[in-house]
């Protein structure tokens, strides 16, 4: 049995549902203690944390904080440190709610700056806030793993969700710069770039023909499920990825190759 992640303290932002929940469960399955961060879905997050504890015999807590609110993030990190003394792994998965509906997206000329700002706040600022308040603890520990969720649309905007894709591109660039500074302290920063993941609340409105179009150009011939993404996140968080930082792994069945 692998014990690479056993006992680690892992914070997954936006993990009461969808990909975030699948990531939290994957860590719990490996014996890590999991903090299920949420903004509004209190009951759902608490039920999910109880389920993780009962099923995997680890510690799991639902913990509320809007990642775009720096004070709330600071308080959340302090609470976690008070309880566990450390944060070993952070997965920045939260973003401002976004519905992936290729037919209802805005065209380039319809975009307002506020649209970009909203997604930059959710993805980039949220990631920044978490990192800012986690880094001191990781530095003190001389170790830490940061995994930031981006998207394969950063490389190939098969559907140009301008605001979302741009914000994810910013997170990618931010992560590489972070990696350059944090390597000296034993902290790695990597990104996971999933393709479309179905079913999630965000992708529920994606039409069959869009999914079929993507499948026909995907060597593994299907769309990812939330569980398909988790292996790569675990890898970056594990000792197997000791010497990897500033990298992005695309998890889309081979749709994007680079």
């Amino acid at each position: 049995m692998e014990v690479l992640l056993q006992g680690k303290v892992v914070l997954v932002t936006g993990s009461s549902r969808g990909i975030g929940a699948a990531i939290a469960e994957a860590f719990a399955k490996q014996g890590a203690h999991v903090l299920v961060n949420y903004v509004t879905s209190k009951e759902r997050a608490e039920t999910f944390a109880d389920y993780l504890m009962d099923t995997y015999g680890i510690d799991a807590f639902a913990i509320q904080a809007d990642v775009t609110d720096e004070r709330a993030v600071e308080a959340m990190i302090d609470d976690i440190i008070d309880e566990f003394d450390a944060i070993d792994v952070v997965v920045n998965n939260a973003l401002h709610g976004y519905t992936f509906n290729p037919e209802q997206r805005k065209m380039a000329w319809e975009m307002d700056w506020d649209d970009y700002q909203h997604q930059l706040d959710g993805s980039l600022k949220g990631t920044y806030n978490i990192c800012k308040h986690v880094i001191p603890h990781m530095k003190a520990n001389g170790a830490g793993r940061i995994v930031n969720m981006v998207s394969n649309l950063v490389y190939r905007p098969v559907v140009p969700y301008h605001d979302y894709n741009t914000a994810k591109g910013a997170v990618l660039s931010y992560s590489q710069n972070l990696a350059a500074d944090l390597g000296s302290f034993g902290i790695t920063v990597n990104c996971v770039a999933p393709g479309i993941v179905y079913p999630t609340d965000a992708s529920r409105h994606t039409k069959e023909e869009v999914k079929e179009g993507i499948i026909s150009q995907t060597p593994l011939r299907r769309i990812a499920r939330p569980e398909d993404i988790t292996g790569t996140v675990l890898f970056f968080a594990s000792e197997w990825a000791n010497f990897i930082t500033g990298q992005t792994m695309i998890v889309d069945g081979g749709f994007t190759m680079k």
Partner: protein
Amino acid sequence: MKIKGYFLPIEPKQTKSLTFSNHGQQVEVEVPILNEQDLKVIETSVKESRQKYIKQLHTSQIIDIIDLAVGKWLNPNYELRRLAEQLLPVITGYDHEMVRLFLTDYLRNFRKQKLQRIVDEDFSNPLVLDEFRPAKAGGLTRAYGPESIIHIFSGNVPALPLWSLVSGLLVKSATIGKVSSSEPLFITLFTQTLAEIDEQFAESIAILWWKGGDEQIERVAFSESEAVIAYGSEQTISDVAKRIPPHVRFLPHGHKVSFGVVTNECLTPTLAWKTAQLAAKDASWFDQQGCLSPHVFYVERGGALSPRDFAHMLAHEMDNVDHKMPRASLSTEEVSAIVKVRSDIEFQSQVDPKVDLLTSDNGTAWTVIYRDHQTEFPFSMLNRVVTVVAIDSVDEVPTLTRDIKDFVQTVGVACPPQRFQALIKLFGECKANRISFLGEMSNPQPGWHHDGRFNLADLVYWCDVEASVEVKMDMFDPFRN
């Protein structure tokens, strides 16, 4: 959650609950308990309503009403559609996504122009359903549907009873629809939609339940009606047949078998994956429970990829379908049937290099059996167990399927246009009722000859007015010259 699984002109004195549990949820469908007297009252009521209303409508008006109902159901936000999407997976165990996609595909077959096609397919002049029309051979003719039809619906694939219900309505018959204990909901909900659109129209429809094989009830029901349409296993059909009086028209739809054929032109590097994807859809859709689902794919040698390669690609695609639309949970008996077949084949594959067993990693989600040579028809125990048999030429197919000749339903084919004519001739002679392209086996087009028969024309009786009446009555005309 509790929901009504009947639509009746009277309130039943007693009901019982059929309980279904799947996907971690439970639903109780309430069905009526009826005695012979209740049934007579119901039959009289729907017949009277039919006499007063449906019989007076033109077929085109009936089509408009059904079209409006289908239009509502094609809207994913329609309340009853949402209810069906939520509850049918719990009732049947089928995957939510599969039910959602199927409802849209299937209901599109009942739009106005499709219904017109169903009628036109059987009647060269559809107006004969409304009035006496001139016959080509002289005189006049008119077609009458039965006063009432008993439908014995099956429950293996949800929503399928709609086909039968619509056929009866198009010939202006009153409907007594007996739902299956395994899926009593869809047709009840659809009838409610008809009532929302035209209450009087729905008064000639009764959706009810009795325990299949209840001899007393069935004798009363069948003797009061002019026609019985029954779907089910060979056993169900033969039991029903015994209780139908000789004067009642019986249209049985018993168990049928389907298979697929892939020609070697489809096994090129660019086409093989698509072919395997379509085959996997057919072999996974509704967990092979429909008569239209393939038991086996006969795959021609001589392509760039071998039939064995195709079996492996099919296995990969079966796995992909399982990711998207997992199979329903099975009973212990069903699981052990699959496990047993797997262990038999595994043993064979170890001693015989011409046999391969490909299975899902965990559990019994799907099974692909490859055979380099096989003369007997490889029946599947269903639930996503399918065989690939290599053949030298499609000309072997009639011989290989000789044993099931009287039960062949659909042949799904993947072929280039150059071989189309020769292939359809070949499969027609295999006694196939229907030839579709691969990937479309489970979705027959409107107006197809179900089990090789007419849908509407088999229900009606004709009244011919001979030319002699037209000619000779003039002799008795008080206004004659």
